[in-house]
């Protein structure tokens, strides 16, 4: 690398930067196609379909629902995806008079969730049903403090359905088992704690399905188009993986060196 480039760019991050720019470009191209009217067919996500059915089930049972966004802050993409789902679920629930409860470890997420639920009631045209401080509770910043608090919250409110969308760890064992004991339907979307979640959940969104869900609920063709862009990027990375394996078998570490940070 030339000394001039070394002065401007952090060492070993050129390929990463190129990949990031490529991702942004491909996402934008897909978005532009969507804007021009191209529609991509995406298979229905079973977990997402079950969520909408679960809201109706809660209305029939006369019980509330709960959406948990996990134990991380606003800097985590999984939490952001969870908050998007919270907004949509809360709106649909508010439309038919079902209350949506939530809690989290992060105080920022708590403050944000309160705003999201309030906006959901406004968007549903049911502002009069919104009760400040009723739907969002905070039990503490620790993982298990939250887990026990959330479990108590579940026992108290007895939700008909609990949607776990966000970042979770072992806390799901406490919260999901409690959810099972009150007869709640469990729908999970996460990248972490998958083995534990798969044991307890009725429906599971695996890996990127969490992010796809947050795009699909918007039903906006332009947003859904970005999922297609995501697939193009995966194809490129798949090619890099295959080329890397072939080169490694041939005795070259070129791809490994390229990907090193």
């Amino acid at each position, binding site marked *: 690398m030339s000394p001039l480039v070394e*002065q*401007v*760019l*952090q060492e070993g991050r050129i390929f990463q*930067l190129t990949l*990031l720019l490529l*991702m942004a470009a491909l*996402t934008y191209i897909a*978005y532009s196609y969507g804007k021009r009217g191209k529609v991509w067919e995406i298979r229905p996500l079973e977990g997402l379909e079950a969520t909408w059915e679960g809201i109706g089930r809660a209305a029939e049972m006369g019980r509330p629902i709960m959406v948990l966004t996990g134990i991380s802050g606003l800097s985590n*993409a999984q939490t952001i*995806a969870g*908050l*998007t789902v919270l*907004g949509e679920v809360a*709106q649909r629930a508010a439309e038919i008079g079902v209350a949506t409860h939530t809690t989290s470890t*992060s*105080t920022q997420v*708590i*403050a*944000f969730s309160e705003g*999201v639920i309030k*906006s*959901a009631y*406004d*968007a549903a045209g049911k502002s009069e049903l919104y009760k400040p*401080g009723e739907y969002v*509770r*905070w*039990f503490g*910043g620790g993982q*298990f*403090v939250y*887990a*026990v608090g959330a479990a*108590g919250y579940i026992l*108290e409110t007895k939700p008909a359905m609990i949607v776990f969308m966000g970042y979770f760890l072992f806390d799901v*064992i*406490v919260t*999901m*088992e*409690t959810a*099972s004991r009150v007869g709640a339907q469990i729908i999970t979307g996460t*990248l972490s704690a998958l083995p534990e979640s*798969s*044991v*307890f959940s009725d429906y599971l969104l*695996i*890996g*990127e399905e969490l*992010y*796809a869900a*947050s795009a699909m609920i*918007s039903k*906006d063709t332009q*947003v859904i188009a*970005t999922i297609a862009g*995501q697939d193009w*990027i*995966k194809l490129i*990375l798949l090619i890099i993986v295959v080329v890397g394996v072939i080169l490694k078998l041939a005795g070259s570490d070129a791809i490994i060196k390229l990907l090193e940070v």
Partner: protein
Amino acid sequence: MSATLTYIRTYLVRVILIIAALSGLVTWYFVSPQADAIANELQIWNTAAASWTLFVGIITIFSHYIRSVMKRERYWPYQLYAMILMVLWCIMGVWSGLYSNLYQTAYLSTKITLHIAILGQLIFFFISGVYRTFRIKTARTLLYAFLALIMVVLNAPWTQWIFPNAEKVTFWLLNNVGMSGERTLAITGGIGGVVLSIRILLGLEKGALRATEEI
């Protein structure tokens, strides 16, 4: 909501996001003391915002618990106990310092006891969850239960005592058979996260207080 407030909520949030995201990206990829300074400043603001929301969180807890205690609702003695503890910890923390023996002993004595209770509960809860999941009803659950059984047996101390090489089999399964799944999750999850961030920057996500809907 007034149009001006909606406008501010929509665009102010987006501008802050763009500045924060760009400063983070620039410091990661480029050598720039100016970007470093902006990123550090934003980090301080982030800490300040988090501290403020922590304060709001404590007020929320107290308002809920005080109401509950006054109405003698279910579990009110626990809520009263929690409030007394929080007040005591605050006094001790301010009076003797966060890292003093007094504060640490008082805090950890309570916390560790509760932690042990939770860890014990975890085992019971996990066993009951596993019992429900691994009941063999179909070929799929048979395969699932079989794979789980392999991992449990190979990880059990007595198996490793009788067959010291069992550990190697466990790691082989995790590092080879399980690796492709792990890699898939890491790659797709990573890409999904980046694309979600781009969607937020483009203003496509509804997440930011859903304000984009109303404008």
